[in-house]
């Protein structure tokens, strides 16, 4: 394995993405909506709302959370407790949906796109190994989604601390569970999703078909990631460690299997089934 070539393939794919404003502008807007606008509006509504009854009802609704989660909620006032719960527990899916959506969009086009543009011919005749091409494209698909998520996570942390912090006695976010979620649980789900998406991208005939099929395949995965992420936040620290560990194992198996799907014949578009 020549890691220099892996890096070259990844950097070149990323350079092309940077040139594609029609791709990254909508993705930035998506990240901004999920990580900034929606939480800001909701948290401001809770902490600044004048309707005490509404906040009280929301605070009472927290009783449906697991006891372990309820014990973690900070804040003296109902508004503070409701905002804390909202910030820490209810926005977890955001951290999963955004990277999966962005990386799926990138990954779906990555191999079939080479074939459609005719550049697959260049790669097929180049000295780069198919595993190097696969890993390069995997990294190039993973980085935009994960980077957007990390930046969005930073913005979200700021929003949460600025709006909810005064209600609970100071800056508190990210919590330990969120760190684990972002650094340990989300990456393997992202890798697993991409291993499936790249397989599809190598097999289908057009980018449009790859996008459609990827949507179908990743939707259940997004739901699993959604539930597992939420569970990781609700549960104890060890639960999220285990969820992450299992996800990593499944992801590694998926990536290893997926590596076999990229062949020179598929880059050329002459393999059976294309």
């Amino acid at each position, binding site marked *: 394995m020549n890691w220099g070539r892996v890096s070259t393939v990844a950097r070149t794919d990323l350079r092309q993405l940077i040139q594609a404003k029609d791709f990254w502008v909508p993705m930035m807007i998506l990240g901004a909506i999920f990580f900034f606008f929606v939480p800001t509006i909701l948290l401001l509504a809770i902490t600044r709302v004048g309707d005490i009854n509404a906040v009280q009802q929301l605070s009472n609704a927290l009783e449906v959370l697991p006891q372990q989660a309820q014990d973690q909620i900070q804040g003296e006032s109902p508004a503070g407790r409701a905002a804390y719960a909202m910030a820490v527990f209810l926005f977890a899916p955001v951290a999963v949906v955004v990277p999966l959506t962005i990386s799926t969009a990138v990954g779906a086009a990555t191999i079939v796109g080479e074939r459609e543009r005719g550049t697959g011919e260049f790669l097929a005749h180049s*000295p780069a190994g198919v595993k190097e091409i696969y890993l390069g494209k995997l990294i190039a698909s993973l980085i935009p989604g994960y980077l957007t998520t990390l930046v969005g996570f930073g913005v979200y942390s700021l929003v949460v601390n600025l709006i909810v912090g005064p209600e609970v006695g100071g800056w508190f976010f990210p919590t330990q569970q969120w760190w684990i979620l972002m650094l340990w649980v989300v990456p393997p789900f992202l890798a697993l999703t991409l291993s499936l998406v790249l397989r599809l991208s190598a097999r289908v005939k057009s980018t449009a078909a790859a996008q459609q099929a990827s949507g179908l395949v990743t939707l259940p995965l997004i739901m699993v990631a959604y539930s597992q992420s939420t569970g990781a936040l609700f549960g104890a620290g060890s639960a999220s460690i285990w969820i992450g560990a299992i996800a990593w194992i499944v992801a590694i198996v998926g990536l290893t299997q997926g590596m076999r799907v990229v062949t020179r014949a598929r880059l050329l578009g002459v393999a059976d089934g294309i």
Partner: protein
Amino acid sequence: MQALTDLDLTAPRESITVLLGPNGAGKTTAIRMITGALNPDKGQVRVFGLDPAVDGEEVRTRCGVVSAKPALYDRLTGWDNLAYSAELYGLGRGDAAATAIRSSATRFGIDDALDQQVGGYSTGMKTRLALARSVMHEPDLLLFDEPTSGLDPESSHAVLEMIREMADTGSTVVMCTHLLLEAEGLAEKVVVLEDGTDLIAGAPDELTQRYWPGMVVRLDAEDPVGLDRLAHAEGVMSYERHERGVAASGTGTGSATVQLDDLARVPELVFALAEAGVRVTRVEPRIPTLEDLYFAVRDGREAFSEKGHGDTGSAASDGKEVAA
């Protein structure tokens, strides 16, 4: 479906070998097998003495390929396209790569456009950039798959001149085309492919000599039947008459093609025809073109299906054999 069957191809060093054949003849597949992008189900491929299926990385590093489509990244600049190739082919990212990029771009007259996005290039510029990319790492073997595809006549001529210059400076070139005129005067060796197999291979002069051992002369006459007396004239090796229709005067018009052992016999044959009252309207010595050869080979493929007739290349195998 078999893309290639029993192909025997050897490309002499520092020369241009042209794979000639209609669409679907297997030309592109042959190139893909040479680099190991595709592997044969049976038979063997040897390039530089290596098996591309096993030593693919080394074989591909020593090859430069231009595909029928230029296979360039439209969103990237010309420089970035070349830099990508430089890195993949082991030139790295330093000064050596930059020098190779500038040098190859200058060679193909594309250096002024290197900072522009390739999406804005004309087809001719894209082909030049693809050619520059193919030679940047100084490959031992250049493989061009219909490099003038989509180009206007002027650009095609320029590209073919560049290819000729490459061979003149010591490169070994294998080029695919279905355009006979393109191969004419460029090919030092021609391999005629059809249905994935080579019908014939050799130097164009040698092949035309094989098909037309004598000089070919075409004669037109007002009464073409009168030309038939040439069939048994001294020095005539073969004779064929072609009826072309009826002239306004009501007399038949037509021509005949004769093969002579010596072009010097033409005056005496014309004189003999005139004496016999045959009015010859045109005498045209014909040097067979590659097009003549191509169609002669295709028309006579049953007779010439036997392998190895005059081929300067390697012996035929029971499978695919592609050597360079």
